[in-house]
């Protein structure tokens, strides 16, 4: 394996040199770096400005020589003296690159994780309900999202998701026609998900879905839930216990009482922690919150292990998962509690269209978190829409392929429950090809989301790249390129290694 990695790295280095050389030449020839200076009316001033920029950008040096200067600076990082050069105003690139990378990661990591989770989940369900109306609907929408021009989608999202939504928040009443349409859609979704062989059953599914949607909308519309949202201890407890039951159903099936008890006990541990810390979490610090979270999980795991009997491992896992869900619910509850204050501090317009945060915003941890989230929501939705399609399609086909394998038929014919067949035998194996996609996607996010960043006012890797191109300034573009290229090369190798580890049939040679 070491030999394999070394060989891949060596090939990569060759590719790297060729690629950077071409990139440098292309950027250096992308236009006239002095263009903005020619319009200066005073000839003396113009000459001074041109001379100064020529000196900074080394424009009198042949471009190939400039490339090797740059490469020398880059390679010097090997003995700790490297430099990425300066941009055309003489600012050093390294701090700019650091800031850009940080900003991009903040923006894109959440979106990518969300896209993976939702995409994989929907893809699995879509495969299990192959050729149902749900499957067709998902297929339709994932192709629609995939083909959306991102700048257009982003502008529409801002118009409806931020501007119109904020206007609506001023008087949050859902109009009756909208309510009816949404209820019908909810009913149709329920029919396609639950299915049913007879018309009576389908009718029941439809009615159930429609009533649930209608009920939620009525509650939102009639109470001031959106203005003062809350779960409260009761909400956290009920949802947490329900989640514990659901987790048990997935992990072991409800028939396994030991696991069910462990899972519920995990939820109870979470609830106890939530209730007992209500007095001290007004403005916590992140280390404190994380510590509390870990402590809760450890406690829940211990309790689960204790009550788990012969099925200890699974019981502990279910308990930890349940406690984690309760912790997440408590977190949401705290954010909801801080919501009214945040809305009033944003003058009633919480959802933002630009930037990573409100300038100079100060507040409790909950309020600053809300501030980040209200700024993240639209760009994240934009990014999720794009990558959602490939995850669902990829997962769906991978799952379908797995479900048709002989070993799945064998498992079924052994008499295993459908849950065991799907969760243990099919699902895990279906995820193996998806890991490759995840690795490559993570490599791509380091390169930033050029258009999304620009539209939503995040100065990340994308703007480093695009501003460098516009100003015909190679060093920022090359800094971007080096990081993005290195990420792609490395994560490609990682993807291969992970694949080989997960699928023993594959050997690296």
């Amino acid at each position, binding site marked *: 394996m070491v030999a394999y990695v070394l060989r891949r790295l060596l090939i990569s280095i060759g590719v790297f040199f060729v690629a950077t050389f071409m990139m440098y030449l292309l950027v250096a020839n992308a236009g006239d770096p002095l263009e903005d200076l020619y319009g200066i009316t005073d*000839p003396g*001033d113009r000459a001074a400005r041109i001379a100064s920029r020529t000196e900074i950008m080394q424009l009198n040096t042949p471009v190939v020589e400039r490339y090797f200067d740059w490469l020398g600076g880059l390679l010097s990082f090997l003995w700790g003296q490297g430099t990425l050069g300066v941009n055309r105003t003489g600012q050093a690139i390294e701090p700019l690159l650091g800031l850009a990378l940080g900003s991009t990661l903040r923006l894109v990591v959440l979106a990518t994780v969300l896209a993976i989770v939702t995409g994989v989940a929907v893809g699995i369900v879509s495969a299990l309900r192959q050729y149902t109306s749900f499957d067709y609907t998902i297929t339709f929408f994932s192709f629609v999202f995939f083909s959306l021009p991102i700048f257009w989608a982003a502008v529409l999202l801002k118009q409806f998701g931020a501007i119109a939504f904020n206007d609506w928040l001023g008087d949050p009443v859902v109009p009756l026609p909208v309510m009816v349409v949404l209820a019908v859609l909810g009913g149709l979704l329920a029919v396609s998900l639950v299915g049913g062989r007879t018309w009576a059953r389908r009718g029941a599914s439809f009615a159930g879905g429609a009533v649930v949607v209608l009920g939620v909308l009525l509650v939102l519309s009639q109470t001031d839930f959106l203005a003062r949202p809350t779960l409260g201890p009761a909400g956290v407890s009920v949802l947490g216990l329900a989640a514990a039951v659901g987790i048990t159903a997935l992990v072991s099936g409800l028939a396994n009482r030991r696991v069910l008890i462990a899972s519920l006990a995990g939820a109870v541990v979470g609830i106890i922690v939530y209730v007992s810390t209500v*007095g001290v979490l007004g403005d916590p610090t992140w280390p404190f919150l994380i510590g509390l979270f870990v402590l809760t999980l450890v406690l829940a795991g211990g309790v689960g292990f204790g009550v788990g009997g012969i099925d200890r491992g699974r019981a502990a896992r279910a308990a930890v998962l349940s406690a984690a869900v309760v912790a997440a619910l408590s977190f949401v509850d705290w954010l909801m509690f801080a919501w009214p204050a945040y809305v009033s501090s944003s003058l009633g317009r919480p959802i933002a269209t630009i930037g990573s945060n409100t300038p100079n915003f100060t507040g409790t941890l909950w309020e600053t978190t809300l501030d980040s989230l209200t700024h993240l929501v639209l760009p994240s939705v934009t990014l999720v829409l794009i990558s959602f399609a490939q995850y669902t399609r990829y997962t769906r086909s991978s799952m379908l392929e797995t479900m048709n394998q002989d070993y799945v038929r064998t498992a079924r014919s052994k008499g295993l429950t459908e849950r065991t067949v799907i969760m243990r035998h099919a699902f895990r194996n279906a995820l193996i090809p998806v890991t490759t996609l995840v690795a490559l996607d993570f490599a791509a996010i380091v390169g930033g989301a050029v258009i999304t960043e620009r539209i939503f006012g995040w100065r990340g890797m994308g703007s480093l790249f695009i501003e460098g191109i516009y100003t015909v300034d190679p060093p920022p573009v090359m800094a971007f390129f080096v990081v993005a290229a290195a990420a792609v090369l490395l994560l490609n190798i990682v993807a291969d290694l992970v694949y080989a580890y997960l699928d023993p049939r594959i050997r690296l040679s």
Partner: protein
Amino acid sequence: MITSRRTTAALAFLAGGALVLSGCSADRGGEGGTGASSSAGTTSATITAAHEQEFNSYNNNTADQNAVQNVVVLNNVLGGFWDFGPDGGVLDESEFGTVEKTSDDPLTIRYTFADDAVWSDGEPIDCDDFMLTWAANSGKFTSTETDAEGNPLSGFSSAGTTGYEDMNAPQCAAGDKEVELSYATPFADWAGMFGAGSILPAHKVAQGAGVEDLIGALTSNNSEQVNQLAQFYNTGFIGTPGTVDTDNWLSSGPYKIDSWQAGQSITLVANDQYWGTPAKASSIVIRFIDATAQAQALANGEIQVARPQPAQDILSQLQAIGDSVKIDQGDEYTFEHLDFNFEGAFADADLRRAFALCVPRQQIVDNLIKPVNADATVLNSRYKLSFQEGYDQVVGASYQGQYDQPDIAAAKQILDSKGAAGTPVRIGYQSPNQRRTDATALIKASCDQAGFDVQDAGQQDFFGGGLANGNFDVALFAWSGSPLVSGQASTYVTGGGNNNGKYSNPQVDELTTQLLAQTDVAAQDTTIGQIESVLWSDLATIPLFTFPGLQANSTNVTGPSFQPAQSQQTWNDDTWTVAQQ
């Protein structure tokens, strides 16, 4: 059975316990600590403006840092003896100090700093600051380094030495509030020197350079110390995104730089040491936002003042917001023009006249400019732009409206009588540039009827190659204007640095020399009128239009208004106020 019953009991206990526990809800801690009231208070006194580029240097006077994104921030942070007024003209800043011409021969000006003028660290603004501005822009202080030919390089980097290079060393001693300044040669734009942003805290430069006596080092031209001063002046004020150099970035205006979040925004707060009329809003935030995102940010209340690059779709987005936004359309200090190449076919005055007669100037303005600036007009002067004081006087004295509308028949007649039908006209411009491509197409459609053969000669390196080498018949590009006359002068004189078309007329040369020495600002317009008159009859160039500008602000804020100078929207941010919410 027993197990099953026990299980059920345990489940019931757990579930019940959880509900009981959750019932005894304790008080939420830190409820009073929420930032609602405090942040709401700050927000209401904060006005947010958008700009496309991120700030990069507190010293905007050096050749490599000079850029609009710094002006946006430094307006009303760094003061000066004058600033651009509402109409883009020179406006004296009497709160900062007074300027008085005491003699015409030699031209001598007395600058007096306000008695209580201090930097935001309490240090008085006086002689040493003045000396530094002069020294840095005079070009007289050379570096110990030399260029490839062995000539010494200029020590201080300066984006513009015009005027400063003609001055004698200012006469003042450390701590003086009054400075006598004389010119070695008369200089028409003396009123445009030592403006806002040009005067930097000299005591900080001295401290940063490790020089005890800045005035002494400059007057004795101590090359080692001058080198250190220049080094710090050139590089010491360059910003690292996210870090405000509170020690050195002092303020001499109503606002001071308070904080900077890299890639996002920079925040100004009222300068408590400012001696003049204080800023009205306690804080101004400048967010770095792409032009295309500004309209929606304005609609969503995230910014209150926007100045995007004008484009039709951005304008319609702004108009769609409705009554809550005030839109200002105006002209910017840049004008588009056609330059003839006097070393080609257009050396012939008749051909120039024929071409001028067929260029559809009004149509170019109607089709390309009016969509973003409904009030746009054809420009009829090269020295003055239509919003400037004196424009009507200059145009009245020089131009009779003969080229307002194309006269194809007359143009055709000239071409036919000269036997010049089919003369190729290569219109050169820097491409890609959609507006210039469109303008060239309009000219072609009109002038081809008259018998010219207009060719679109847009080149990617037009400025670098085509223009200087005379590789064009007609050049289409823009000059940036200014209220000062000295910048324009070299465009039309024989052998001038901007005279790309090699136009030459001794009468213009003589009048220009006269203008540059004319220290009485009011009399300059008459001379300009005479120059323009010759330029029109010679058809040295054809002015087309001024660039459109676009600004919009939320009606929650009063004060912002469009100004044509390159000071951008924050030029008067010290007078912005928030209306009652």
